């Protein structure tokens, strides 16, 4: 059997037996390196804040054949300091737009420059976009966003603590901070401009990251209940759960990321919507990070918090791998809780011969023998 297909087949059937917990050092190291380099970049060069946060004026002119020098000429003619002006050319399908950003300017200067640009580009005045933002505005929206975030953290922690448990709430938030820090770090390293759309993207990442972590933790909790009678280490519970949701995680990431990739390519490269491009980059990075962190950061971290609980402590060092894990996962059948057994009796009236089958499998699973070969069913 060709191994890549084999791997895919196992993934499709949910039969992978990757020891995520055992390899947590790798995951933690990778995350730490990325996050730290992002943090260092944040400290050293900070973020490239757009005019919405710094305050200032931006004009967008259909460029045609305009050059950098033309733009500076216009600025100087109107008495605007052009040394610090930031001039970008945004290329799209057939059209090129020149974006000129300077510090705060009074109203009449804004209008005068807009008129000059319109003359220069030989277009209507209306075709030149102007945006002006006072510097206090940026501060106030940033403050509002941060306040919103803090409130959100509290609400989400309470919700997860109630719905799952408080240790999961903590790890979910750590994983989320990891994702946001990672994306912010990338913005800093590559000096992408931070606009309100970027803030939206960061918030999306945060929401998505939590969403993804909750889905994984939900399975962890379900399995913890399932295994509660079978004396397992938490690492086993975590490993089994992660492997079980692996197919779902990859699928969801793909289907979430595809629209974003489309946004990135169609929106920015084909149609030249620059604002969409950076937004999509932030989102893409964040979504990939969100899936990664749920599996490689959140779950191993949860194991660190939980492995010493009285319930799991005696089995702390027993980590089943390979076929043993497969047995635990019940790649043939998971060990069932007593109340499950009742329902499965109901099932077994319908499936007369597979009932005996699953009983036998339940036994193998709890005794952690190597799995028996699958019986052929009709």
């Amino acid at each position: 059997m060709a191994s890549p297909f084999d791997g895919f087949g196992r993934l499709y059937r949910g039969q992978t037996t990757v020891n995520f917990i055992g390899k947590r050092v790798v995951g933690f190291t990778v995350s730490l390196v990325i996050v730290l380099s992002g943090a260092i970049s944040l400290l050293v060069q900070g973020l490239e804040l757009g005019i919405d946060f710094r305050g200032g004026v931006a004009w967008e002119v259909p460029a045609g054949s305009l050059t950098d020098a033309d733009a500076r000429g216009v600025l100087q003619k109107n008495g605007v300091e052009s040394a610090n002006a930031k001039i970008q050319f945004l290329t799209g399908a057939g059209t090129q737009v020149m974006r000129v950003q300077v510090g705060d300017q009074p109203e009449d200067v804004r209008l005068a420059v807009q008129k000059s640009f319109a003359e220069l580009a030989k277009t209507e005045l209306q075709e030149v976009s102007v945006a002006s933002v006072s510097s206090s505005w940026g501060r106030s929206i940033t403050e509002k966003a941060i306040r919103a975030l803090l409130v959100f953290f509290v609400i989400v922690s309470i919700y997860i603590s109630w719905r799952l448990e408080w240790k999961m709430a903590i790890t979910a938030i750590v994983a989320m901070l990891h994702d946001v820090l990672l994306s912010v770090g990338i913005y800093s390293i590559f000096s992408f401009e931070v606009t309100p759309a970027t803030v939206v993207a960061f918030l999306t990442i945060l929401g998505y990251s939590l969403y993804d972590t909750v889905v994984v933790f939900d399975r962890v909790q379900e399995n913890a209940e399932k295994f509660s009678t079978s004396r397992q280490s938490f690492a086993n519970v975590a490993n089994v759960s992660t492997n079980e949701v692996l197919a779902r995680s990859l699928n969801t990431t793909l289907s979430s990321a595809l629209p974003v990739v489309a946004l990135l390519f169609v929106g920015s490269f084909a149609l030249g919507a620059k604002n969409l491009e950076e937004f999509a980059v932030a989102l893409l990075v964040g979504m990939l990070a969100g899936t990664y962190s749920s599996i490689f950061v959140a779950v191993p971290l949860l194991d660190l918090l939980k492995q010493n609980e009285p319930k799991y402590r005696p089995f702390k060092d027993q980590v089943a791998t390979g076929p043993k894990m497969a047995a635990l996962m019940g790649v043939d059948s998971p060990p069932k809780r007593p109340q499950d057994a009742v329902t499965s009796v109901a099932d077994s009236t319908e499936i007369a011969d597979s009932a005996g089958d699953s009983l036998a499998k339940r036994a193998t699973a709890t005794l952690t023998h190597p799995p028996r070969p699958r019986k052929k069913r009709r």
Partner: protein
Amino acid sequence: MNKRRQVVTLVLLVFVVGASLVANLAAGNTPALGLDLQGGASVTLQPAGEFDATGLDVAVEIIRARVDSIGVAEPEIILQGDTVVVNLPGVNDQQEALNIIGRTGELLLRPVLQSGIYNPDATTTTLPGTTTSSSPSTSLPATGDSVEDGAGMISGGPGASRVVSTATTITATTVPETTVPETSSTEPVVVTTENPLADLGLGDDPNDPTQTVLLFDKSGIAYVVGPAGASGKVFKNDAQPDVQTGQWAVVVGLRSGVDGDQLWNRLAAACFNKTPQCPTGQLAMVLDGTVISAPTVNEPEFTGGTVQISGSFTADEARELAKILEFGAVPVRFEVSQAQTVSATLGSDSLRAAIISGVIGILLVVLLLLAYYRTMALFVIAGMTVSIGFLWSVISLLSRTNGLALSLSGIAGIIVSIGIAVDSYIVFFERIKDEIRSGKTLKNSALRSFESAWRTIVAADTVSFLAAITLWYLTVGSVRGFAFFLGISALTDILITYFFTRNAVLLFARSKRAQGRKVLGIQTVKPEVM
């Protein structure tokens, strides 16, 4: 869980969504586009200095009235916390936008020179004179005074005094000194006055406090008012509607000092004595070029520190007047914190980019799911179609009724939610796979999978929804638009999962045809008893 109910729910849901979609399309409701998608001007204002919440409401109303008066199609004026966002689609001249809304509204107290019905056809407009001689004199009962204003009124002295506007129904006379002349605003007597308008030297800027100008109130009565004698700042910001002897009135305090009661008393005395400066004895309260109220002054001096304006108000009118007085006392001065024009070309480019990438994104996802889940992916496609129909209806309806506009960040919210919506199916299908593999029939697998998948989906969607709500309440601008669409999508996901996906998949799972077939790439067990 019975089959009939599932079919009914399913059909009903599809029917309701289809019907609302058709209804919305028929009514011509389409999602309104935000400025960043259709071009226009957007101005964000933040109050500067002292202001109060009531004042802010009035300020927003003033801006709304101004925008309406110039006839901008579908303007959007939103109060987000203390911040006012004014979006003017199609207005591409930033200067024009700033001129419309940048001015500070101020409540001016201007003596009325003449009032009546304006006749624009006549070369020299005739105004029905409303002098006190042509109006019946009435006065207010004393009971109200003793309740509200205390001893000052009972003694007949110039205590807490009253000014009465449009008091057409007040007839009782018990306290002689508080006479209430009728101001003829409801049934004006058309009398040609001695002074044609032309002689008054009318100014052309109704907002210039130094000119004599022609103004109107909301019912169309015209007033020729002189230069402003004072502004609303003579009042304290404590205006309250109040019932006085069964009638609604507004009581407001006067500030003390040169700019407060002294200024007011000088003006009141001039009107009370009907000096040439104020021949009608009426004092108009003018806000943003509109006469709000033009009461007659009944006291030469207001030593009690409060002014009462009474008349035939309804409760709402009194409340409205109190609100405006409060605004007048503390006018909200705005600072422009963000001004933006987006050219129509740029806007439509962004819209096209967003739509094309959205469509391509959805197609890619559908292909992926078809490749991975084969026939089961049809449920996803059907479910997504219903979701999109539902979202379209809701957004169109809200666009029409609440002025909700779909902006670029909103579209981002929706694109992101595609992933979340598809995830619900993935969680469900992966569960079914697990269950089938453990040897259950398709029917039992589907039933049990839904229960556990539902738990997960609700938990995860709740987190999204909490995020959306928090962001919606605590932020401004584009983040809010994003939050709104994220929240709506999360709710839709829950709704569609429960009512559509569950029923559709369960019906499929128990259908005779599906038994014993390969589902999701796994051979299912054929039950012996159906």
